């Protein structure tokens, strides 16, 4: 009889401990963008919990540093960021206020995807802000090349293994599966996109440089005269002339951009406007990293078909 309260107390403590650490077994992974979150899910499978901060429809440069993100980052075992200044406008104060020693720069819990990517458009000459909001480290929209997604997955598997060695074999198996799938799907995407190889396109922002490079599209100019600077009347006029002269077929734009200028350009030049999801969640069909490319390929091909006489 005397032992009963003691047993009950111990049971209560054990239960509360179980309640307090329900996700101990799983790595708590926070990704700055849904693309990185989706790749992490592929590699981590059921051994990780993933939260993506930015929404797929958002402009990843201008995400609000919501206080709820501080709480999410405080609980993170791993933070995956794109790097190359993609999140420079909002992530640093969140990490500072999260008070989480595990996700500080240089530690295994902080993964910067750009570290394993060969960045395009790295400025080689002198740069300053007269060139717009130029990225000194290169173009940070690199997840739009599936091969880069593959490289990021490899980096994630390596880091997840270092942090949770007990699940390393699972991460390796998942990675192999993801790599095989990407390879197989890439072959299909490339075959589907082959007829468009060499097609000249204009993009709104420099969001599609990696996509174009992978599938052989030629981005001849951008609607923004410089990164982050909206189009002026003279730039649009020059662009119309250039698009006509070079026979630009498609105008690629993110779902969140204004539609007036691309529509005007399309009307003036006969090019077709294609709203291309730039991140996972950017369209209904782009539910994960693989379906993002299914959706992109389908959208671009449909637009190209419609343009053909």
């Amino acid at each position, binding site marked *: 009889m005397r032992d009963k309260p003691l047993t009950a107390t111990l049971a209560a403590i054990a239960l509360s401990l179980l309640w307090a650490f329900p996700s101990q077994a799983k790595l708590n992974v926070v990704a700055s963008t849904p693309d990185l979150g989706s790749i992490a899910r592929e590699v981590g499978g059921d051994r990780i919990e993933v939260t993506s901060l930015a*929404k797929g*429809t*958002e*402009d990843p*440069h*201008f995400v*609000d*540093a*919501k*206080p*709820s993100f*501080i*709480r999410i980052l*405080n609980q993170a075992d791993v933070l995956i960021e794109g790097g190359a*200044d993609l999140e*420079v*406008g*909002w*992530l*640093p*104060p969140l990490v*500072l*206020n*999260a*008070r989480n*020693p595990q996700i*500080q720069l240089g530690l295994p819990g902080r993964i910067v995807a750009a570290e394993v990517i*060969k*960045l395009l458009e*790295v400025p*080689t000459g002198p740069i300053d*802000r007269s060139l*717009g*909001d130029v990225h*000194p*480290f*290169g173009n940070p929209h690199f997840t739009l090349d599936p091969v880069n997604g593959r490289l990021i997955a490899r980096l994630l598997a390596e880091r997840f293994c270092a942090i949770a060695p007990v699940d390393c074999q699972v991460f390796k198996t998942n990675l192999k599966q993801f790599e095989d799938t990407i390879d197989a799907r890439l072959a299909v995407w490339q075959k589907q996109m082959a007829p468009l190889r060499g097609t000249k396109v204009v993009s709104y922002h420099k969001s599609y440089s990696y996509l174009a490079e992978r599938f052989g599209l030629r981005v001849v100019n951008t609607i923004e005269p410089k990164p*982050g*600077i*909206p189009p002026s009347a003279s730039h649009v006029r020059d662009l119309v002339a250039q698009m006509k002269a070079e026979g630009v077929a498609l105008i690629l734009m*993110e*779902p*969140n*951009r*204004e539609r007036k200028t691309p529509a005007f350009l399309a009307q003036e030049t006969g090019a077709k406007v294609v709203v291309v999801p730039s991140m996972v969640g950017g369209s209904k069909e782009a539910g994960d990293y693989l379906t993002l490319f299914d959706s992109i390929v389908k959208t671009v091909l449909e637009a190209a078909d419609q343009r053909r006489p």
Partner: protein
Amino acid sequence: MHTRICACVCAALFVAAFGGWSQGFAKETAGSEIEDLKKQMTLMEEQLKQLRKKVEELEAKPSATKGPEPDQGKSEDTTEQRLRELERQVQQQRAASRGILAPFNPKISLNGLFTAAAFSDKNNLNLGDHDPRVNGFNVQNVELHLQGTVDPYFQMDANLVTFIEKGETKVELEEAYGTSLALPANLQLVAGQYFTRFGRHNRQHPHQWDFADQPVILGRLFGPDGLRGPGAQLSWLAPTPFYLELIASAQQAQGGIATSFLSQAGQTVRGYTLLDRPVQKPGDLLYMPRVVTSLDVTDEVTAALGGSTLFGPNASGPNNTTIIYGTDLYVKWKPVNHSQGFPFVAWQTEYLHRDYQAGPDTINAIPASRLKDYGLYSQLTYGFVYRWVAGFRVDYADSAGGAAAVPFLTTLAQRDLVGERWRLSPNITFYPSEFSKFRLQYNLDVAASRGREAIHGVFLQAEFNIGEHGAHSF
């Protein structure tokens, strides 16, 4: 007790000295790494040059045979691939070298805020040192911001400000503080000189304001330059499913930057002359507890609510105290498909109340009194299209008590700090880029101290920002 303090100081000095040595070692290591990188880059650039030359030679050479060699196309492809690979690597090295060198220097940015102002009365009602205050051109604020990581444990920020007052250039150390990076138990320490985290507006720098001038009630309670001072702040992020932060701060209560507290001897608060009252005991410091929470109402709407209290000594008497209460609310809507942060709607409101135990003033023989000062501002900003933001702000402030001291309010500036005042401020701001802005604002200002006759003000403000891309807090 003294021995214990000495031991602590010695220990602290030792730790600081050891820290300095290890940083020196780190610098040496980093220096050699940079040298290696530079060598590697030079080598790669040399290889690149040679390869380019080879390709040019191959291209210039006429084909000896009628048709191409079976493997010629393949070998050219391979060379081209190698060339591209090398080009990329060199670019990467260049970018990496920037990345490696930069972190050892602090991130630097310089912000300039200038205004052309026109008031209907040259003795206008603007209170702040960084407000537009005179007809014609005003240098509101030129601020140098430095930020860097000190070591694995701290980050440091400093804001050095220069401005022009009555034709004289003044420089002030606005803020310089370290912030801990890795304290356990969800704690964070801030130490140095910093703006008190009371409410939302007090800690914002003039270039972060949504309006050209500071709210009336903040000017009345925190003085022309905002409430700040040397001190230490400890904050704790609660382990709740939602964001909840508790902040406790202790700061020096002296100087022109602690207007409602010890301030400066000889100054007056609502007619009461301030004594020379130095800090002698822990009770002479300025203390602030604050609680702030936030909720994502939907994916597109976020609200943040805070409550702060300040208590500390005031110099209108040897044992007098002041308490200030405040509550603040910020609600922002931004659609999930925004482009470059637009459109958005943000509503920010703060209410402040001061209870000032004044006197007796032995110089002017004014009996003791409880001075009450209270007021609020509420502002709405609407980013209606990319680069354009429209704003509207309402200010209201009033005071009670201290009737016996009213005859001693001898200057207009002293009388303007007492009694009812309200102000309406519509404005529109154009941002050519993230790094510059132009703002047009109109103020309709009505104060009991001016017989409730409206004073009009129009400001055209320009801001320029160079250097590091700063991050925006919510």
